[in-house]
């Protein structure tokens, strides 16, 4: 534990840093608005290694010099990740180091960053259970990697699963003490914290990211058994479709046909944190969704791109009559 004087200085520094960051916020996303909180976290991490506090001015610089949102949020996340990684014991220190003194504390801060931003989306009692479980794992293991990994992937819906998961993890932790601190792995977990929900539920998006072209909106929702003919506009190359109320259907279920070709699409909201664990859908083969929300609430809608046959003037859509009654095939747009 740091001495009383160091603690008081750190508290003063944290307040000053939070105020400076509050006035430096230039954009309206929850990650930008969380800048004061991130500053406090960095000051907390600087208790043992004071130079880590250099992350606070870097946060302000990142916030104010990058107008492009993904670049800006990634820059902020890199600063935060580096501040965390600096706490890791160096290989030469044989396990000794500032972070080695407080893995539970570092885990606590990491989970707050990964799961509690944006705070308005947090269901406190669910998140407290996960937080407690992760901190306990970190304490028993005297390490942070496994605990943070579990916390990142633990579902808050249904919370029973998370409880069971952490109970098993705490028991296992007594035997997993040999797992070493691993800075690169930990940095990788944290560096995408503005989209931690996508890391947890749609990691394939980092390999096969969704893309959007110029779109002509259609916004039809077709019930099972219905058919529809649509004229294809000039230069259209693909149809964007998704399912509604189809999250319980297994992967590759045929939702309908376009000119006789099967249409396979995921539920539009299957990657939402409330629905994901219960869903049996898969990440689309040709994803066309948008990244929505931030932090652990971030998700990608399940829109899928279906290529149009070359030179086709109109398409006939037929919805699979065997789908559940409340299921819908959503024809979103031409692209």
């Amino acid at each position, binding site marked *: 534990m740091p001495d009383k*004087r*160091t603690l008081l*200085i*750190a508290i003063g*520094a944290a307040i*000053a*840093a939070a*105020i*400076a*960051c509050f*006035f*430096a916020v*230039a954009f309206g996303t929850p990650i930008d608005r969380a800048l004061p909180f991130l*500053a406090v976290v960095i*000051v907390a991490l*600087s208790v043992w290694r*004071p*130079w880590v*506090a*250099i*992350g*606070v*001015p*870097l*946060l*302000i*610089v990142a916030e*104010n*010099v990058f*107008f492009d949102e993904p670049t800006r949020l990634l820059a902020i996340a890199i600063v935060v990740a580096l501040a965390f990684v600096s706490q890791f014991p160096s290989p030469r220190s044989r396990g000794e180091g500032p972070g080695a003194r407080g893995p539970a504390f570092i885990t606590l801060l990491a989970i707050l960053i990964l799961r509690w931003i944006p705070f308005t989306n947090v269901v406190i009692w669910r998140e407290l259970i996960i937080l407690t479980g992760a901190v306990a794992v970190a304490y028993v293991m005297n390490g942070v990697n496994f605990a943070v990994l579990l916390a990142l992937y633990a579902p808050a819906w249904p919370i029973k699963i998370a409880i069971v998961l952490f109970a098993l993890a705490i028991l296992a932790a007594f035997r997993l003490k040999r797992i070493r601190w691993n800075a690169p792995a930990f940095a990788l977990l944290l560096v995408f914290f503005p989209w931690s929900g996508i890391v947890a539920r749609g990691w394939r998006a980092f390999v096969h990211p969704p893309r959007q072209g110029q779109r002509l909106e259609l916004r039809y929702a077709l019930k099972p058994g219905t058919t529809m003919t649509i004229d294809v506009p000039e230069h259209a190359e693909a149809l964007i479709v998704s399912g509604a109320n189809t999250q319980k259907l297994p992967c590759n279920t045929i939702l309908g046909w376009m000119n006789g070709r099967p249409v396979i699409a995921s539920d539009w909201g299957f990657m939402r944190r409330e629905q994901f664990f219960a869903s049996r859908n898969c990440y689309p083969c040709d994803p066309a969704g948008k990244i929505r929300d931030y932090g652990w609430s971030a998700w990608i809608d399940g829109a899928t791109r279906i290529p149009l046959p070359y030179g086709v003037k109109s398409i006939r859509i037929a919805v699979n009559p065997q789908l559940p009654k409340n299921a819908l095939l959503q024809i979103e747009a031409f692209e």
Partner: protein
Amino acid sequence: MSLATRFTIAAVVVYALVLPTQLQTPIDGDEPFYLLVTESIVHDHDLDLANQYRDIAHTDTGRPDLVPQLGDPTGPHGEQYSRHEPFLPLVMVPGYMLFGLPGAIATIALFGVLLVRSLVRWFEDEGISDATIRALMPLIVFGPPILFYAVRIWPEVPAAFCFVEAIRGIRQRRAQRWIPALFALVLLKLRFMLLAVMLLPFIVRDRKRAAIAAAMLAIPLLVVWLISGSATNVHTLRELVPVAPMLYVKGLFGLMLDGAAGIAFQAPLYLLGIVAFAHWRSMPEGFRLGAIASLIYVLTLLPRAEWHGGWSPPLRYIVVLMPVLALGAAALYEQVRSARAWLAPIVIWTFGIALHGIARPWSLFHIANGENNVGEYLSTLYHSDFSRLFPSYIRPNFAAIVAPLAVLLALLTFAPRGGEKVALSEAKGRMRGVPILAAIALALFFHFGKLPGDRIEFEDAHVTHNGGTLYPYEYQVARFLYRGGWMMKGGDSLSFLAKRGSYVLFYASTEPVVIDISGRAFHLDAAPTYAVTLVYVPVTGRVTLRCLNGSINLDRMDRRE
């Protein structure tokens, strides 16, 4: 493997990787002229560049626009010589013959590598510990300005190597080291004679050495006289005569604090070297010798209009002195623990500048209009005048008055004091304070940067230009001697942030002009030389200035109330 060897290997690798990045754009500044001389030596075996200029498209400079520099010496039969001393081009001959332009630059990089080795050895000789060398040497040799001058054709890095070797030789009393080093230093550029002259009292101990020293000074003068017909080339001895004191103040603070050309912004590590002067007695003897040797050189540099280096990468004229400042910084870092508080921000800033210069080598050259790269970038992003928050001594602004006071305050609060050996815990406490204060300063910086200022310089990046041209044009020789402005004619307009109130408008125009500011028309008389008039901005916010008829050169607008 010794530390010097390790850093030498690292320097070979780093310079070899950085060199190609600097060839993304054609060589610039004085570089093509040095290369032309090399080409002339190789192909024509002479120093006459007349045929090179006639067939400039077929030279290796990649600069078909190249013409002789203003005041270049000429011969009686139409010979065209370069004003630059021929020693550096001569040194580049083998490299050029082997690989052309990259080979010529590689020769300079080789001197950079030698400088690295020499620096490490010098630091070790002066008692700097291995840990300190490991911590600081990457910032010195892989950071600005040495990095940028090591991979470009300028005499600065070879000169820095010679200067270090000369000091080492004098300190070790090894004539075989200081004689060639000092001789090469003076041959590289006549201005380095000012360094050599100050070292003379330390080396002239008998008649033999006095004769050697006299020859060392005379031969370069003779060479220059043979080429240009004047022993001082394009310079005059009057340049050594002290001039107005204010110019010294401007040059001194400019070299330390200017946003575009000052140590604080372009190579912040060396600020520690400046602080080291306050610890004169405890500094290594090499530092003191180097500082004394630099005295006349710096004093003659300060009042020059081109103290900032002109069309070159930043800190051009003081690159040769950087090893001395580096030694001071290292000694301070070692002696005073709280000096380490500054290392983290210095590391980030230094490598930030280095990476920026590697990725965008053309940005190393600036038109010296009072702005700088960071200010221009932010001004363009926010369309607000961020450049005014950076101290400028090229175009003095309010920040140039505040900056020295702020630095003084920072030094009094945080800088290591004489003979201080603070406890580690206290040093850590101070270290925590520095980044937080930096954060507060940055928050204020961005807050005030987004607000309109009291002065609008019309050629600046924050002004949205709809028509018109920059005055004088970007590549005007010695552009910094002109009052910059924006030329407008009927139909052109400017848009900028301004506060409500009366302004004094500085302009020049050969005919009567009508301008419109936010719906109010102002009739301006003809003013062949710069004139002032009063204008009024009715509301705070974005203002549009239109030129309704005539043509006008708008310099700036200063708020009165």
